[in-house]
């Protein structure tokens, strides 16, 4: 029955992860089952320490789960792959490279020739409105600009799945708003599958087609919410700001969200 359906873009089966530090066992993820459709914008929201970042690292193939499997396009994930590119919370732009060379980095690793590389990098820099700063070094950029470079660097590799780890957390409110708008625009244009991690419920609801709420340690999927509000969405939209007193704690947020059934159809 299941096989008749088209395979999801990304599938996680019973993924668990425990960290061992100084003899202490820390179970960060427990039995994560998850399917992501092609072109979907999925947001993972949860308190800090709920393993959302670890989950992204596992999907990216940078960390191994203790148990469970991950399939990208039906192929088992065994390590990093350019089909799944992660934008780190700390961005991890390379300070020894200019903006354009940072964007070109992944293409260079794929042994794409210089001209094509440059052309592609310029195209993506244009998409994030940074063409003018192509020869700047990373330290010369503002936080928002660095974020754009990181986005361009990831997009340039044309990944099928874009993994974003709390990308806008260090930005001021205005820059965050602007980048959220642009991200939605770019997502619409490129039709990428995006998995976006945040601890900000409002941001998750604003951006996601679907929001998965994680519980704290060990991270488990507590709730799944579909957000069927037309785009483009803005974090100050009335339907979102109605929940002006949106509390920070996830449990409480869920109660609040249940009160808004006309906005959010709860699936589970």
């Amino acid at each position, binding site marked *: 029955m299941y096989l008749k359906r088209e395979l999801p873009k990304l599938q996680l089966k019973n993924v668990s992860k425990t960290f061992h530090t100084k003899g202490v066992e820390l179970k960060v993820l427990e039995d994560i089952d998850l399917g992501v459709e092609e072109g979907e914008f999925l947001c993972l929201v949860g308190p800090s320490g709920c393993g959302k970042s670890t989950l992204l*690292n596992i999907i*990216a193939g*940078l960390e191994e789960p203790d148990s469970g499997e991950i399939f990208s396009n039906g192929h088992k994930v065994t390590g*990093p792959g*350019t089909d799944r*590119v*992660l934008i*780190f919370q*700390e961005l*991890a732009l*390379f*300070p*020894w*490279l200019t903006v354009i060379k940072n964007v070109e*980095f*992944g293409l*260079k*690793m*794929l042994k794409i020739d210089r001209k094509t590389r440059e052309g592609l990098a310029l195209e993506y820099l244009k998409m994030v409105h940074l063409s003018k700063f192509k020869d700047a*070094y*990373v*330290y*010369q950029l503002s936080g928002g600009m660095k974020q754009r470079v990181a986005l361009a*660097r990831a997009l340039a*590799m044309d990944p099928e799945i874009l993994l974003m780890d709390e990308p806008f957390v260090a930005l001021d409110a205005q820059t965050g708003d602007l980048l959220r708008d642009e991200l939605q625009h770019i997502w619409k244009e490129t039709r990428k599958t995006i998995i976006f991690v945040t601890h900000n419920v409002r941001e998750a609801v604003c951006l996601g087609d679907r929001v998965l709420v994680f519980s704290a340690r060990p991270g488990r999927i507590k709730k799944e919410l579909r957000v069927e509000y037309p785009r483009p969405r803005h974090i100050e939209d009335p339907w979102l700001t109605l929940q002006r007193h949106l509390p920070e704690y996830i449990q409480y947020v869920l109660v609040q969200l249940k009160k808004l059934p006309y906005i959010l159809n709860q699936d589970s």
Partner: protein
Amino acid sequence: MNGFLRRIIFYALLIAIWEMVFRLHIWEEFLFPAPLSVLQTLVNGFMDRTFLIGIAISMRRITIGYGISVIAGILLGLLIGRVKLLDETVGSLVLGLQTLPSITWLPLALLWFGLNEKAIIFVVIMGAVFSITIGTYSGVKGVPPLYLKAGRNRGAQGYQLFLQVIIPAALPSIVVGLKQGWSWAWRSLMAGELLFVSLGLGFLLMMGRELNDMSQVIAVMIIIIIIGLVVDKLIFAKLERNLYERWGLDLA
């Protein structure tokens, strides 16, 4: 420019004091020469090409010795920085050898190679290579794991990860090692040249002593200082500034 002016005045004053002490005739002239006779010796030395040949010979030795040290030191540093087994074994040996003054290798070098160029270049290498190794090693060890992750996530593996992520990320520390290595190489070369007849600047220094020609001794010392400074200020300072600017680091 202000700082430059102050420096000029300082040195002018220093030379004036030197001249004054000379005129007090506390020491014999052959023990304490006048600034002007040192200058005269410098001019003569360059005119009859003695100093030029000395400089050329020393520079050739240090170029070979330091060049080998740079290649060997960086390779060794990368290896012990990335391979745990080598770190635990060779790494501790390198630390030990770095504390050994390089001139103590001279007796061994003389027995192995004889009284020739190879022996002195060997001493230079032993002086410089471990500083460069340690600089490279700590650079590699200090590469933020995040950069490695980012590199791997964007398709870099194996030698690409080495060339495109690890080495550039370690570069500031490697440059510190190179600079330190240079100054050790220069000191080792002078010590070596002093200790056995060999031409070169150290040899000219000893010749001054044997001829009781203090002005030659001082003249050669000045040349040694100037070469050391020029390389440090022109090459390494520039390299560091370039690197720090690019990385947006403060010039400490």
